[in-house]
């Protein structure tokens, strides 16, 4: 058999013999971690039994292999000091020499604090304040950068901006189309069931038009983009922190806000309204298909009555919301990304928190805008 090398170990042995009135403990075989491991509990018990006799003589000369783990097991049975009567191979002497150290101070354990709840709340509040402060600072810096770029148009980072638009916009077309279409179909189908009861079939166009263009399209697209691009931005910045790329940029005198934050904010501010327009169209097509199947409304009629049913202000409102959402998603993602500490756990937590926060912020801001613009675009 080829695995001859596996077999050269004799199992660890322990034998108690009585010579005259002297107890003697004889250890033999292989005392290394891998050989000991299967017999650990049994050997530990036997060792303790032997060690319970203070005058026991220990004979370790039969031991072929001894490593730290084996020696530590024996050492602990002795009560962490050398046995009084000990016979040992000279080459094993130095292993026990390692253990003969002053006892190190115990590691401080986790402290139990009765005020833990209060402190956690306080810390969370301070963290929130800190986030808001950073967002304001980043926003201010971006303003300054924008002012600088307006005076020095040559240094506008066009490549970064267009690359970000491609990643956050063009590459998101597929998923937003799929989700938009399905939501359109479902919404139209459920509304059609209710409208049929009242014979108000034609109102399907109003319901679909207003809800999709004003509300659902922008929010759906924003949530998808927050999940897709927000997480990507946070993870990218986080990895750049881990690999010290952020420091490298700072050393070269390239401000993070100018090269990383602003292109992403600009890109999302441009691509979000376009994505929303795309999602709206696909969702309306989905609704149209469903309305045709359920209520028999013709495609041409649907498209012709859409402008009458939905005032154009709703479209501008939806697209305007897109710009705001895009800026917010980029801002939140960059804020979390720049905060990531150079370790893997922080990267994971940061990315998750970034996505959750940006989705929450999008919905909160959407609600606020809904109240603000309650008189606009609804006849």
């Amino acid at each position, binding site marked *: *058999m*080829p*695995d*001859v*090398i*596996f077999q050269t170990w004799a199992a660890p042995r322990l034998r108690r013999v009585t010579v005259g009135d002297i107890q003697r403990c004889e250890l033999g075989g292989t005392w*290394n*971690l*891998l050989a000991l*491991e*299967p017999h*650990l*509990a049994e050997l530990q018990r036997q060792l303790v039994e032997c060690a319970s006799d203070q005058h026991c003589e220990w004979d370790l000369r039969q031991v072929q292999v001894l*490593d*730290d*783990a084996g020696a*530590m*097991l024996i050492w*602990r049975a002795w009560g962490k000091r050398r046995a009084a009567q000990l016979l040992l191979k000279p080459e094993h002497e*130095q*292993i026990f020499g*390692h*253990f003969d*150290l002053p006892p*190190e*101070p115990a*590691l*401080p354990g986790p402290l139990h604090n009765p005020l833990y709840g209060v402190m956690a709340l306080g810390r969370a509040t301070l963290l929130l304040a800190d986030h808001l402060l950073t967002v304001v600072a980043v926003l201010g810096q971006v303003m300054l950068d924008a002012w600088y770029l307006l005076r020095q148009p040559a240094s506008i980072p066009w490549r970064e901006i267009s690359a970000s638009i491609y990643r956050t916009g063009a590459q998101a077309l597929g998923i937003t189309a799929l989700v938009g279409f399905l939501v359109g179909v479902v919404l139209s189908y459920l509304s059609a069931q209710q409208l049929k009861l009242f014979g108000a079939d034609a109102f399907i166009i109003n319901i679909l038009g207003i809800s999709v263009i004003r509300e659902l399209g922008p929010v759906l697209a924003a949530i998808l983009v927050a999940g897709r691009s927000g997480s990507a931005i946070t993870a990218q910045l986080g990895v750049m922190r881990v690999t010290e790329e952020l420091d490298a940029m700072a050393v070269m005198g390239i401000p993070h806000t100018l090269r990383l934050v602003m292109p992403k904010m600009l890109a999302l501010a441009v691509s979000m309204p376009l994505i929303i327009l795309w999602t709206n169209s696909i969702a309306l097509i989905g609704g149209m298909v469903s309305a045709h199947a359920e209520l028999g409304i013709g495609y041409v009629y649907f498209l012709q009555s859409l402008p009458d049913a939905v005032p154009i202000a709703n479209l501008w409102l939806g697209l305007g919301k897109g710009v705001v959402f895009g800026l917010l998603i980029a801002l939140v993602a960059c804020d979390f990304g720049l905060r990531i*500490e*150079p*370790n*893997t*756990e922080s990267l994971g937590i940061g990315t998750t928190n970034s996505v959750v926060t940006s989705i929450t912020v999008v919905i909160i801001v959407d609600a606020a805008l809904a109240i603000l613009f309650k008189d606009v675009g609804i006849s």
Partner: protein
Amino acid sequence: MTECIIEIKGLWTQFGSHIVHRDIDLCVRHGEIISLVGGSGSGKTTLLRQMLGLETPARGEVRIFGIPLHGSDQSQLRKLRNRWGMLFQQGALFSALTVFDNIALPLRELRTLDEDLIHDLVMVKLEMVGIEPHHANKMPAELSGGMIKRIALARALALEPELLFLDEPTAGLDPDRSESFVKLIQELHQELGLTVVMVTHDLDTLVALSNRIAVLCEQRLVIVGTLDEVVANTHPFIRNFFMGERGRRALEAVKDMVLLT
């Protein structure tokens, strides 16, 4: 047969159409320190990864302790993996775990040792690599590169392996640190009777530690032999490597040491 702890036979490594290794044969004997040398991108680390089973050979096979790395059953490979330790170039400490937990992890994975014993063993290992106990609760991000290397070595040694792999053990350490790291590995080698496979660029480390040197160049092993045998070889890469200014200085230093002792 039993002399070869690691046996590589007719090994080819290929990434797509890019051939890294072409028909490599190597036998690592018990108790020796063997160094893999070669230019940047010559596939030293890839060969090390082949020995660890992290890459799959395109052709040929790798046997460790006589067990083929590809094609053996999982339980046998698991047992094998407890018999070797690897020190990665950047340490590869788990950044989410403390120093203590990093070293304790392989011990805990055995699932038979009790926590007290693990604590004592970890402390012995930390002492062995010269890390003070009060660093045990720190996170890897708080430590310097030299300390990370030492702790990674302690983790590699946690299971008392018979075989130790080192990838650039002294890269990124200051001369003083790399000196003491070399001493540490020498001591461990004598004390534990380890077999060591090392990838290194550092001539001083190479000369100080290796019993044998394997030179990897143009996808093949050019020569495997002792320092004198390798230096005597006339292959252009070897001449450049050892007979350049730095190489000569390192060789002279070792000759002085031999004369002194």
